Structures are given as structure tokens and as C-alpha cells.
């Protein structure tokens, strides 16, 4: 029996069908990440779960109770917003205790819960400041604190890290993962950043144009994408896609084949499976990305290797690949297994 269940959930904006009948079961304690390109409906879906957007079709069941029509205040979910959305006229302490005060909890208990959360998030020294006196990272921690003092049934995160700079983003990501484990909470997290998706999620939900393309563990998606979209969306740099004819017999039955950059090996010109010309070399320190223009087709592939290369643009090279790591797709873009 799943904890949170989406059953054929739909959303329309006028004539625009934003969410096209989504089914999804989430278990208690799971960390679920919705990922997809902008406009795919991932934030809309999260806001529908939160109750901030009306659900136009289907059902939403939480802990055995149908909450499709319930006002957000009655759902017992907590949300962390991208813009933090702190109450500007309240101190950090009042921000964090707001929900508990509305619920008329015992003041001593509120005090205890807030100071415990503040301690966990290193906010103890800032309890009496207002949000505008805090840095971006501190504000984000207050927003998280506001959610955790309530011990809600599910935590909802709407791109919580996208307003932070890169260093702080990495640090906060680790903190969120840590908090999730410590609180044994159920979390749903929306992001367009696949690094966040891969590092945080128990299961990733890849969305495109209002439908779920694939649900699976991060490594599942990486190693066994069900279609071309997921194959290319997960992984950085993205999977190389080529018409099957480039590989001849090895790709029989497929329309297109995909091979990740690290599954290519560069060999001397004339050897290997594919021939091409080096277009560009990106030396990133820990890895080197070599862009190769392959002969006969208008396609560019990227080869990743972990040692430096003496290759220069316009050098001729051969490429060898591991056939067991090849992904084959039919004309509709679905994986052939």
C-alpha cells in the first residue's frame, strides 16, 4: 500500500493540457525527484499535490485518504519554495513557529521544536532577526526549518536551490539529503538540475510535456533508459545518438543507437568501428571531452576520457566502442531490449 498515490491526475489551463493523466505511487520515506526540461509540468504537478493548483481530473490519495479537493491548509504537507517565501514581517523564530501557532500547539512544545530545528540548521543565533537581515543561504535554511518543525506527512521542495550560488548549492544539497535520512521523511523534490536529481533521489521521475517518460532509480535511468528522451536527458554530456547505419550490422533492427561518451575509446585513424575528424578538445582537468565529426553522416559525437590527449582539431581518429553498452532505439524512439 503506497503512502501517496496519484491516480490519472490531470490539469488543464484553458485548452492547454498541462498534465496528461499521471499515475504514480510513492512509498513512505522515499525521496522522489521530479526532473525535466522547463515547461514539462513538474512544478505544476508538485503544486497540484500541494493543493495550490486545482486538480482537473483523477485522484490524489494520501495515507489512505482522498485529498484531491482538500484546501492546502488541511493536507498536512510542508513546502519549501524557490523564492523561500518567508514572512517578511516576522522574525526567524516566528516564521518557523507560524504553522505550530496556527495549530494552537502548546507554547512550551513550540519553543522546544523551534530550538531543536534551529540547532539542526545552525540558526540559533539568528532566531530574532527578520528575513531581510539574513543571507540567501540562511533564508533557505529558515524555509527548510519552517517545514521540518511541523513534522508533516510529506515535504515538497520546489527548486529550492536554484537561487543559491554553486558552492552553497552543493552544500545545501548535502544538508537536505542528510535531513531526509535523519527525519525519515517522505520528500518530493522538483528540479531541472539532473545532478540534484541523481544525488538526492531514491527514485527519479523524468517528465516531458505533461507525461512521465520514466520512473526509476538514478542508475536505472542512466543504464536502462526506456526511450531516447530519457537517454539524452540523463547524463552530462548527453548520450551520443547516431543513425544505426553508421554501425552497420552491430545495430541491426534499430533506427538509432546511443552510446554514452565514456563508452567510446579513441584509437588510431583507420582502426576501430567509426572514423572521424576531431572538431574540438575540451580539457576539463579530471576529464577530457573530444568532439568528433564522424564521416558520412552529419553528426557530432563526444568521447570522454580520463587522461590527457595530444589530439588537436582536424586530426583524424578512429573510435572503438563496447557493444554491450550500446542502447538501441526503434523509429518511435523507444528502447529495444
Amino acid at each position, binding site marked *: 500500500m503506497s503512502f501517496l498515490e496519484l491516480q490519472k491526475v490531470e490539469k488543464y489551463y484553458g485548452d492547454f493540457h498541462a498534465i496528461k493523466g499521471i499515475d504514480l505511487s510513492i512509498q513512505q520515506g522515499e525521496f522522489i525527484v521530479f526532473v525535466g526540461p522547463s515547461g514539462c509540468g513538474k512544478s505544476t504537478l508538485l503544486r497540484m499535490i*500541494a*493543493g*495550490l493548483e486545482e486538480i482537473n481530473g483523477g485522484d490524489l490519495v494520501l495515507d489512505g485518504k482522498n485529498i484531491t479537493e482538500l*484546501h*492546502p*491548509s*488541511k493536507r498536512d*504537507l*510542508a*513546502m519549501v*519554495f*524557490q*523564492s523561500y*517565501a*518567508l*514572512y*517578511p*514581517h516576522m522574525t526567524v523564530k516566528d516564521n518557523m513557529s*507560524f*504553522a505550530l501557532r*496556527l*495549530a494552537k500547539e502548546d507554547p512550551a512544545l513550540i519553543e522546544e521544536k523551534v530550538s531543536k530545528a534551529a540547532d539542526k540548521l545552525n540558526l540559533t543565533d539568528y532566531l530574532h532577526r527578520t528575513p531581510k537581515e539574513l543571507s540567501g543561504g540562511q533564508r533557505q535554511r529558515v524555509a527548510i526549518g*519552517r517545514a521540518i518543525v*511541523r513534522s508533516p506527512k510529506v515535504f*515538497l521542495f520546489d527548486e529550492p536551490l536554484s537561487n543559491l550560488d554553486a558552492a552553497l548549492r552543493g552544500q545545501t544539497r548535502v544538508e537536505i539529503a542528510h535531513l531526509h535520512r535523519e527525519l525519515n521523511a517522505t520528500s518530493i523534490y522538483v528540479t531541472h538540475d539532473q545532478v540534484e536529481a541523481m544525488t538526492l533521489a531514491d527514485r527519479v521521475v523524468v517528465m516531458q510535456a505533461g507525461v512521465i517518460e520514466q520512473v526509476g532509480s538514478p542508475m536505472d535511468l542512466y543504464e536502462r533508459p526506456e526511450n531516447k528522451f530519457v537517454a539524452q536527458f540523463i547524463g552530462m554530456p548527453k548520450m551520443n545518438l547516431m543513425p544505426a547505419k553508421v554501425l552497420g550490422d552491430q545495430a541491426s533492427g534499430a533506427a538509432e543507437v546511443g552510446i554514452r561518451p565514456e563508452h567510446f575509446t579513441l584509437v588510431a585513424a583507420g582502426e576501430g568501428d567509426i572514423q572521424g575528424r576531431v572538431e574540438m578538445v575540451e580539457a576539463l582537468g579530471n576529464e577530457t571531452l573530444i568532439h568528433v565529426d564522424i564521416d558520412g553522416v552529419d553528426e557530432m559525437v563526444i568521447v570522454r576520457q580520463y587522461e590527457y590527449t595530444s589530439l588537436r582539431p582536424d586530426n583524424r581518429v578512429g573510435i572503438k566502442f563496447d557493444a554491450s553498452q550500446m542502447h538501441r532505439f526503434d523509429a518511435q524512439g523507444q528502447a529495444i531490449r
Partner: protein
Amino acid sequence: MKHAKYKWNTAFTVRTIASWLVALVIFFPIFFMGVTAFKTELEAIAVPSIWSFEPTLDNFYVVQERSDYVSFAINSLITSVASTVIGLLIAAPAAYSMAFFPTKRTKDILMWMLSTKMMPAVGALIPIYVIFQSMGMLDTLGALTIIFTLMNLPIMVWMLYSYFKDIPNEILEAARMDGAGLKEEFRHILLPLGIGGLASTGLLCLVMAWNEAFWALNLGAANAGTLATMIVSYSSPEGLFWAKLSAASLLAIGPIVVFGWFCQKQLVQGLTFGAVK
């Protein structure tokens, strides 16, 4: 650098002189009225004006005796306060829904509301007069309160809309997620964050209702007359009584000027709404 500073100083001086000139031109009639109110009728009509005279309070006694200033003032107070309170009660929910739950037509509705202010009031006088007449409401405080409310409503909705628009929607959504229903959302979030806007809007509409003359003259005369009607009664066909007219006017604008003085900050904020973000 030195040159730039010199230029700035010139500009500053010119600006200062210009603003003082404009302020004096605007203020002079009020100042002249204030002075005239303390003259005798003879001194008041003297040309050129007499500037050294024995100030007298006689005009004020006459005004109170002849037209019962206090009852007019109470009418003004009741109609302006009531119309402002009722207006806010209607405008705030309207502005709330327009600011936080906009539809494709929201902008059109706002434009339409504002467009009603572009029609001259006299254009609607006959139908409104007939309506109040058939309802037996002519010359009642109720009629004036209703008309003042309706008159200010478009401005109130516009002002509150622009103030509410400045409050990020996500803050209200966060409150909803925290368990706030509509009532708590209003009390704990919208009211504290929007109190400046509500106050400015209320103050501005209070002043506009207090100063309103057209509807007050046409719909209320004897029983429901506001201070505007009292002033008009002093510019009568029997002849102009400049000193008494000035005294009456001073009494009429006095309360609202004092009130406005104390609320300057909110009023300026209200008058420049939308201009400064």
C-alpha cells in the same frame, strides 16, 4: 569634478526656487482665505487688500449661529468615514482576487472600472437622482454614503490591487501550506503586509469624500448637507459675504487639513501609487 559639483548646485538652486514658487502659487489662495476669515466684511472687500487689521472671530460666531457648523461637520464625518469603510470592505476582497487569482480578463475589468471615472459625473445625475427619489432617499446620509462609496470604489480597487500585487503570491501560498485558511491568511499575512496600502487608500478616499461637492449639493441639501453645501450657502444671490465665506471655508477644510497633515506620509504614498516600486 569641481565643475560637476557647481552644475549640481545650480540645478539644485533652480529646482528649489521653482518648487517654492509653485508651492506659494498653490498655497496663496488658501492663505488669503485664512487671512480674510479674520477680517470684517468691509476690510475683506477692500481693494487693494488690507494686510494690517485687527483680527476678529465674529465671522466664525456668525457661521456657527446661522448655519450650525457642527451639524454639517457631523454629516461630512459620517458620510466620508462610512463610505471609506464600506468602500474598503468591498474593494479589498475584489483587489485580493484580482491580484492573487488573476484571469485573462482581470486587466480588462480594471480598465473598465477606471473608465467609469472618465465620464463626467453630471452625465449620470438625472438617473441617479431619479433612482434615489423613487427610493425616497433624497437628502439622506445613506444616499450620500452610497454615492461616495461608488464614486471612490474604482480608485480604491486600483490602489489596493497595485499594493497587493507587490506582495509575492508565494508568501500567501506558504501560509496556506502552513495551515492558514482564508481568515488566518488575511489576518496574519495580508493585513500586516498590506496595512500601508490599506491605510493610504482609506486616507485618500476619506479626503476625496470629505471634499466632494457635486453629489453633496445635488443629492443632499438641508438634512444631509455636508460642509461643501454649507460653504455654497454663503455665496448666495443676496450678495457675497467674503469674510463669512472665508470663515466657513476655513472651518470646512480645517479638520481634513489637520488630519492630512498628520498622515502626510501615507497620503503621499497613496497619491504616487504605482509610480514608485
